């Protein structure tokens, strides 16, 4: 399956030009969004978690989830060998069963993009790279843009950037916006995922505002977290971000994606999130073009559950490749 993210140029967002004219306008717009009631949002997220997905629905959901995984390694100890090994798993998650789809992408640091490009040549698996001084985002804009440029020129087809949470929390929304616009430009044809780092924004109101800000600035995806901060992806955060892309599509006609990263480890969690995508954003979002899981351990559990469904028995963990 070839993956093409919904294309956005930002050009057709001229109707929003006065919203992003200056910081005061942007602030008025973001603070004018309807509030999020924390208790109600948590209750809704929990209620969706009680859907019972069995048999054929479960089989569909597991394969869909596998095809939406951004298989990720973002450690200081990463090496070419580690990345090459992961790329093989990305292309052939289960070598014993050709019906298992490849994952959507691998996600690595910029210096390992070239390794991934070589390892994935000829496959449909995309190469995502974190950039912009990931994970803290604390560097000069010029440095961040160099980071992005290097990843893109090495062959990254997707860029996962982090927003400047310090600026966001201080109310300097236009600085955050301008930075995303600049990174988008530096990304060229690569698709841009904007990491909000929900665990540092904390409130659902802040996550809703950051989501809209990122979408207005041209992010193709909004992404929960770096995976380096706890809590990362949680159901209430996912709920609010899915509502944001749904509402953004209703107002602009543009489909943008959501990526949940960090904390999604089990098939059960993944299926609950697919239910949420289905019932909050809508079934149009149930595609790797518009929904991703950034994860490392999740793939193994999906494969274990897939075996269980087909054979009726659980395999031991040793029947699944470690990495």
């Amino acid at each position: 399956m070839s993956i093409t993210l919904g294309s956005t140029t930002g050009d057709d967002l001229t109707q929003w030009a006065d919203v992003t004219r200056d910081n005061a306008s942007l602030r008025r717009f973001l603070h004018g969004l309807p509030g999020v009631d924390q208790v109600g949002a948590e209750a809704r997220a929990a209620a969706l978690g009680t859907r019972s997905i069995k048999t054929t629905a479960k089989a569909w959901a597991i394969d869909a989830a596998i095809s939406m995984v951004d298989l990720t390694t973002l450690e200081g100890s990463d090496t070419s060998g580690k990345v090459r090994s992961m790329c093989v798993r990305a292309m052939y998650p289960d070598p014993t069963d050709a019906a298992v789809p490849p994952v959507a992408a691998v996600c690595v640091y910029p210096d390992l993009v070239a390794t991934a490009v070589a390892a994935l040549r000829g496959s449909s698996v995309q190469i995502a790279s974190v950039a912009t001084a990931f994970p803290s985002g604390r560097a000069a804009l010029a440095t961040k843009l160099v980071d992005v440029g290097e990843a893109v020129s090495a062959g990254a087809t997707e860029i996962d950037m982090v927003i400047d949470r310090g600026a966001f929390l201080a109310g300097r929304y236009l600085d955050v916006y301008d930075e995303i616009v600049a990174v988008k430009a530096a990304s060229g044809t690569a698709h841009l995922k904007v990491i909000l780092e929900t665990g540092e924004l904390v409130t659902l109101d802040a996550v809703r505002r950051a989501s809209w800000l990122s979408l207005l600035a041209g992010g193709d995806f909004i992404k929960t977290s770096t995976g380096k901060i706890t809590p990362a992806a949680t159901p209430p955060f996912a709920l609010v971000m899915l509502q944001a892309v749904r509402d953004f599509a209703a107002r602009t006609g543009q489909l943008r994606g959501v990526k949940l990263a960090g904390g999604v480890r089990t098939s059960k969690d993944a299926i609950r999130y697919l239910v949420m995508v289905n019932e909050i954003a809508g079934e149009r979002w149930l595609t790797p073009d518009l929904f991703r899981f950034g994860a490392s351990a999740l793939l193994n559990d999906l494969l274990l559950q897939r075996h269980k469904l087909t054979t009726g028995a659980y395999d031991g963990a040793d029947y699944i490749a470690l990495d």
Partner: protein
Amino acid sequence: MPTFEYAPAPESRDTARLKPSYGIFVDGKFVDGHGAAVKTINPASEEPLAEIAEASAEDVDIAVKAARRAYDRTWSRMPGAERAKYLFRIARAIQERGRELAVLESLDNGKPIKESRDVDIPLAAAHFFYYAGWADKLSYAGFGPDPQPIGVAGQVIPWNFPLLMAAWKIAPALATGNTVVLKPAETTPLTAITLADIIADCDLPPGVVNILPGGPSVGQAIVDHPGVDKIAFTGSTGVGKMIQKSVATSGKRVSLELGGKAANIIYDDAPIDQAVEGIVNGIFFNQGHVCCAGSRLLVQESVYDDVIAALHDRLATLRLGDPLDKNTDIGAINSAAQLARIQELAASGDAEGATRWSPECPLPNKGFWFPPTIFTGVSQANRIAREEIFGPVLSVLSFRTPQEAVDKANNTPYGLSAGVWTEKGSLILWTANRLRAGVVWANTFNRFDPASPFGGYKESGFGREGGRHGLESYLAY
């Protein structure tokens, strides 16, 4: 990629351990009632579930005498701490048999299993736990240093929350030292009889609780019986008025929890997504068979279009069908009679010029079903804005100012509940202070807790159930 079709995920019907026939529970024993043998049916399929040997007026007399004996000889004299042990035991037994009770409730009532499993049964257990805690602390409840029980309580409950209403009635009565003669609704006797089974298993002294399924004549016999000291009724305002007349001059104490036509007020600064959930929960929870349902939606005109659009989208995701399927959101209407009433009132909405809307929603061929329905363009004068529909039908009105919202909300003979949605705390308090309703929910709806009192203003009844206030109806002080 194909779409995400949820495969059927039904809870097993066997879990309900249905018996072919059930009797009545009098003086600690299960016996066949002297009334008619009546079949109770599954409203989702119209299939008979079991036969009930209903009670007669004669059985009521036997039960009241048994309750009196139990009151005089044991229950009213028992120390509160001892009564509490029984109540705790019942609460635990409800939890242990929770799955059975949930399936049974969904079979007999038609409500979705996710509601009976996650709301009805856990709350029923919670009420017993809560009032068990009060049983030995009545001297500190604010009703004088030594409040006393009243005697035999006659209790008549509705079909919308069969087990939960039984718990609301029985738990505070027992905690305060009263004994009980309870009549469940004619269409939904099964969980109440199973509760009798639990009570028998818990070795409650004979006669403390008597459960007598039957029709209106049994209810009338309980209300009229001279040996009954207190009447507690939940049901329609019409029947409530009849009860009031029957007991006038009898000296019996009465508490009535009757109908409602609650306003759910959405201010323009409301958290819209959560408000939409609250609207859905307010009127489509339990198919709208809820006396405190938020059946009148009052939306501030500046956000009217946004709210209605969001509501349409949300309704399109509701799943109507088999009540035992764990993914069902909307179950069956409880009876043919109730369905006819809903249809008649909805037709009056059409006739009086309101605009009806329902999501695309195929209805099963058998059973009693009504799709989730919204009427817009409703006037305060329309029948669907004034009469209790007791079904999944929402009437939408608009307002311009907070005062107008309050005026419209209060412009009803009912006054059971109301909802207020705004991010502004001061507006919540301003509004709540002016609403003539027993329960006002802020930024939520249809939330229940045993510690929170519940009851109405005006024609929604009087007396409070739940919380410390719920003790008062069962105490003399």
